[in-house]
Structures are given as structure tokens and as C-alpha cells.
């Protein structure tokens, strides 16, 4: 299963990708912002993990564009972000994010959220 990991922090991309590899997902592609993610997204991507705060196109903007596309309507989007006030979480939900992880996160939380969304990704 291919994961698209979107974050402007190279450190965070590496942490997320290493976490994915640790739980058995080795097929990953990465992007530094929403625009790059859109360019790299195709039907082979089955799961997206995205940050919120990024230059050019934020994670919520990216998710909205993705949801407007036929091939991106149903792909699971997990947001991993430092933003954690109620309004932000609701905004992410409205944009079409399927679940939400607050930074800094533990590998256990990441695994739980991915596991919960895997059936939709496999569909």
C-alpha cells in the first residue's frame, strides 16, 4: 500500500516514514507542501498523511482540492499537526480530513489511527 507523506519539515517526514516502515509499510512517497502533494498524487496512492502548516498550499487546502477530484474523494487523509484548538480540529474535519493526530505524537497513536482507516484504504 502506497502512502503519501506531506510535511514541510524534512525531520517530520523522516519520522513519519520511519514509523510507517516500522509497522510494515515500506511504499512511501513524500512532498514538502500541498502543491507538491497534488503533483505527486495519483490513483496508486492509497493513504495520505499530511501536516497542516506548510508554504504554498496548506494541508487543509490540499485536502479540499483532493476531495473535489474523483480520484481523491475517498482516499483516507490523516492530519498530523501541531494545531490543536477545537476550531482548528473542526476546520480540518470540514476540509475532509478523516482523522487527526496532534504533534508530538507517539508511534502507538500513529499505528492506531492508521489501523482504524486501513479498511477504507484497502477498499
Amino acid at each position, binding site marked *: 500500500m502506497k502512502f503519501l507523506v506531506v510535511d514541510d519539515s524534512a525531520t517530520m517526514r523522516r519520522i513519519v516514514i520511519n514509523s510507517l516502515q516500522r509497522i510494515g509499510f515500506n511504499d512511501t512517497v513524500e512532498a514538502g507542501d500541498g502543491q507538491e502533494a497534488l503533483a505527486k498524487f495519483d490513483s496508486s496512492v492509497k493513504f495520505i498523511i499530511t501536516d497542516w502548516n506548510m508554504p504554498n498550499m496548506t494541508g487543509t487546502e490540499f485536502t479540499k482540492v483532493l476531495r473535489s477530484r474523483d480520484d481523491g474523494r475517498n482516499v483516507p487523509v490523516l492530519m498530523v499537526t501541531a494545531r490543536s484548538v477545537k476550531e482548528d480540529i473542526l476546520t480540518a474535519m470540514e476540509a475532509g480530513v478523516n482523522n*487527526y493526530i496532534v504533534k508530538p505524537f507517539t508511534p502507538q497513536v500513529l499505528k492506531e489511527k492508521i489501523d482504524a482507516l486501513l479498511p477504507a484504504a484497502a477498499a
Partner: protein
Amino acid sequence: MTSTRAHEVLYESEAALRLVDQELTGLHDVRDVGPTAPTISLADLPNILEQANAQILNVLARLRESRAALQTTALERLQTTHEKIREVTTATEDAAINIMDACDRATQMVDELDAIDAEAEPDREKATGIRATLRDELFLMMGALQFQDITSQQLAHASSVLVDMEGRLLEVARLFDHNVDVTHSLRVSGAPDEKTYDPNATTRNAEGRQALADELFTSVKAPAA
């Protein structure tokens, strides 16, 4: 006092200063005109001085209000920024300590593995367990590096406050001198892009904040994947 009110006061002060400048220029023009121009009698002088005095008092009052407004807004924002920078220091230190602790534990485990290897009949099962724990420790060390992303957002916020403060100070300086040199202004190099950081980013209470997100995603119907 809000930032908007501070701006209003600043512009009112500028308007008052321009008014005084206009008045003084007017007086200057009267002084410079030739002998054919109407002369000002000595009897008018008290009125003129009274007017000038009133204008100057008005300007001083405006300037005092501006100073107070700027002081309040600046202090509030600088206080927040100061706290953010202190949090960066704490987060960095916490992460460093966590990583050092993990390094200590990892080193102990390597020593244990060496000891097992040195035994006449090495306990392979025990060694396998220690290796698994060692991998977990190394992985946790990597996770501790998440502080870098959060502290960089906190520093970006602090930087944006400094750029904003500089802008306010430049506006005050321009009241007195329109030719203020802005060549080396922080604005020239640009404030951090607001899209790239969260002003409230923190390393604190991650569990509590995650619980809030989970609660919202459970209580409000999340979009189906």
C-alpha cells in the same frame, strides 16, 4: 488596548502633528512676507500664542496616548513571545535529556548483549528480547526529535512578532522624520510565512490535546473515508 485602537491612535497623533506643522508653517509664512503684507499687531499675539499652546498640548496628549497604546500592545505581544522562546529552551532541553536517557539505556543493552555473547552457552532467546527493546529505544529517540518541528514554528512566530514590532516603531519614527532609513529593516528580508507555522504550537500536554481531537472526531461525525 487592541492593536487596531493602537493604530488609530497612531494615525490621530500623526494628523495632529501635521496640523501643528501646518500652523507653524503658516506662522513662518507670515513672518517671511514683505513689508506690504498686513502686519500682526501686538494685541493679537496672546491669541496666537494661546492657539499654538493649545495645539501643542493636544499633540502632547495624543503622543502620550500613542505611547501608552504602543506600550500596552507591545508588552503583551513581547510577553507572549518571551514565553514562547522560554518554551523552546525547555522543549530543547527535555528532548536532549530524553535522547540522552535513551542512549544510556541503549548502551546498557549493548553491554548486556556483550555479556551474553561472552557466556559459554549464550542465551539466544534473551539476546533476541534485548535487541527488540534496543530497537524500540532507538525508535523512541527518533520520535523525540519531533521537538525540532514544533520549536521551529515557535521561533517563526517569535520572528513575526519582532518584524511587527519593528514596523510599529518605524511608524512612530516616521511621525518625526519621513526619511527614516528602512534599508536594514526586518521587513526587507521578510517575515515568516504565516501559513508555515501555528502561533500556538507547543510540545506540552500532547496527550490532553490528542484526547480533545479524538473526542471531536468521535462526537462529530467525521467524513467517511
